[in-house]
């Protein structure tokens, strides 16, 4: 049983943000028809590749169908209208100029398909200057503030970072887009009416830091040009250990006492007040602590030492790598990774979703479609079949 059974979503998106939003809905069980240009979606050409297939495309398009339409051609554009006439929602991530050129702007779609939920994801939202529309994920995460403030404690001479992987802001935007589409489809069930949803990727970035940035906006805290403006202070950070890295977070006397015990109460710990984390957490003490702690932790192995730390109430954890996760007992217990036979890759492991649903568990039922694999849903003769 799947949560969104019976809903039909059309995807004209051609970037990761929109494809991920539609993937989230497809993985919940909606029927998602991906509209690809002749030659295929741009994400089919993103590496890495194996046996000629893109891993990025394979990841982003599970549980979807594929049809090929050349939206520059009137006959194919008319075929899209036939799909939209029986669909519940349309997900797009093109800029406004493209939408106007293809009669897929908000005014055009709300007139021709008033029952449709229509979501467009753009970097800065509808109405942004035309020159801003071509923004890539690194531009979005820099415009939205997370790059400037990541990692914590970055010094002024080091560049802001793009985040994890290539597509972090796209995934964040995809989540908000999928949420809004589902909320609007709830309204469609009640009223039979469509709605237009305008998602700004930069505003997703800004919203995710609400409880830090809003206090600055309201004047509770001074905003600044400091790279550390989002930081919390304290000794928490990553450290190298013998076989990788660990992360430690400490704020209380109990954390400190637990750690001292774990290290065997070395003499240097006695030069700190036992409540230093709460009442004497100066920059100098943090630096001094880190020097001593680095010397000790570098000789430890990440799994045994973090397990021992958890048992004494110290929030020390391994910095898990891609290779660690499929072996992690909690990930195994929850079934987060799903083994699937992919036609080009063979047996591969898909990361799934963070929500285990008791009645409608999310499953990868089908791998990403071949180009135009579902052209028959268009009915009649297709120019590109």
């Amino acid at each position: 049983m799947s949560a969104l059974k019976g809903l039909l979503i059309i995807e004209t998106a051609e970037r990761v943000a929109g494809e991920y939003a539609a993937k989230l809905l497809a993985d919940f069980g909606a029927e998602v028809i991906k509209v690809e240009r002749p030659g295929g979606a741009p994400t089919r050409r993103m590496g890495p590749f194996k046996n000629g297939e893109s891993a990025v495309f394979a990841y982003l398009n599970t549980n979807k169908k594929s049809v090929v339409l050349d939206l520059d051609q009137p006959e194919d554009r008319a075929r899209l209208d036939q799909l939209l006439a029986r669909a519940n929602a349309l997900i797009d991530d093109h800029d406004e100029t493209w939408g106007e050129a293809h009669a897929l702007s908000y005014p055009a779609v709300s007139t021709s398909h008033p029952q449709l939920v229509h979501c467009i994801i753009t970097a800065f939202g509808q109405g942004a200057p035309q020159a801003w529309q071509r923004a890539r994920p690194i531009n979005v995460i820099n415009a939205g503030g997370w790059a400037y403030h990541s990692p914590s404690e970055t010094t002024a001479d080091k560049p802001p970072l793009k985040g994890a992987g290539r597509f972090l802001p796209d995934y964040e935007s995809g989540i908000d887009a999928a949420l809004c589409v589902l909320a609007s489809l709830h309204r469609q069930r009640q009223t039979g009416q469509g709605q237009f949803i305008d998602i700004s990727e930069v505003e997703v970035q800004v919203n995710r830091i609400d409880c830090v940035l809003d206090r600055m906006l309201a004047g509770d805290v001074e905003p600044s040009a400091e790279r550390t403006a989002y930081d919390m202070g304290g000794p928490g950070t990553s450290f190298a250990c013998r076989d990788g890295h660990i992360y430690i977070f400490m704020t209380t006397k109990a954390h400190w006492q637990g750690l001292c015990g774990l290290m065997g109460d070395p003499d240097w710990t006695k030069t700190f007040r036992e409540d230093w984390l709460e009442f004497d957490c100066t920059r100098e003490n943090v630096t001094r602590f880190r020097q001593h702690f680095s010397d000790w932790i570098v000789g430890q192995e990440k799994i045994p030492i973090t397990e021992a730390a958890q048992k004494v109430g110290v929030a020390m954890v391994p910095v898990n790598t891609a290779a660690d996760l499929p072996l992690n007992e909690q990930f195994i217990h929850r079934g987060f990774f799903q083994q699937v036979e992919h036609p080009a890759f063979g047996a591969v492991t898909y990361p799934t979703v963070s929500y285990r649903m008791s009645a409608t568990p999310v499953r990868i039922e089908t791998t990403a479609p071949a180009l135009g694999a579902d052209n028959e849903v268009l009915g009649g003769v297709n120019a590109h079949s």
Partner: protein
Amino acid sequence: MPIPDRGGPLSGVRVLELTKVWAGPYAGKMLAHLGAEVIKLESATNLDEMRAYGGVDINSAPYFLSINQEILSVQVNMKTDEGLDLVRSMVAESDIVIDNIRPGAMERSQLDYENLRKVKPDIIHVSIKMWGTDGPLGYQTGYAPCFASLSGLTALVGHEGETPKGMNIRYGDSTAGACAALAAIAALHHRERTGEGQFIDLSAVETMTSLVGDSLFAYSVTGEIPRPDGNFHPEMCPHGAYPCADGEWVSIAVADDAEWQALCRVLNASALANDPRFATLKRRLANRHALDRAIGDRTFGETAADLADRLRQAGVPAFRSQSSIDLCSDDHLWTRESFRMVTDHRNGSRPIIGPSWRMKPDQAMIERGAPLLGEHNDYVYKEILGLPQERLDDLIARKIVD
């Protein structure tokens, strides 16, 4: 006093939240900003820490005000059996329950899903925990940077060749809340079609893991373990943040040779444009450290916003790397009402960070700031549960409503 109908796509949906700090309240906020009626269960003797941080007055604590707009607050002491009975009565009148309290706490109060469904058979219960509700590590609790580290995300974020420091320490809670809201509404669709509710067990660690999904999948396909890679992009070069005047930075992403030539023109760098080391994407990638230095030498004297503007006009995707003060004074964000005003009990009004979406027609109104503790006791107890005033007075006197 009736609560005004704010409209929006989730109008008519009622959510109860037993949440603290950030991830749970953020989920409630997103649903409220979509029009749901979201009621936060609170108690003076078991406060959300966010009402205490950074201020003495629990009704004007900045952290709390920054998240909980359009949330209703009802007081109930859940350490009493009578209080728990009142909670169950509220559950019976709700569609969705969200919690992010300590592992085992809902079970101890007999408010776990199996008990909730006895009260309301089609209830949707979303529970947010660091590692989910059960399993060998389910007992562990942690803070956002811990679950980012456990998730595989931190391992990918760092300057090249250095210890992976991860995203800013604040990253993680809000995204977990957003995924909780998403799954809750998916479950609402299932309920509307079939009449069946369900339990949603969310792992904040796995939320972070899903944000590096393509990297983990690529590892499964190719066997190559992804590393912290600074601003490296295998298909764009140059791709990074480059130093400008006054400590500012500009992000630049060049996907093809035309954009590369345009970048060189804007930087007046014909020497770079003609340098064979940088002639093709493949060569730029092979010589990217030299390339990054050469570009940095030419951006260094520029004003970030001006340079980014000239680059965009020339067709090169670029944007200033924005600090907190840049964001707070960003005209576009204010004009688009990303930043907007809500009512505030202390000062009359307060700016908040509005949702990332706009909807037409029927957008939910977002006008009221975070609630006073117990501000909506009358509404919940008298209008929803139908209790007479004397009964409410008695509950208050005996600190069942505290």
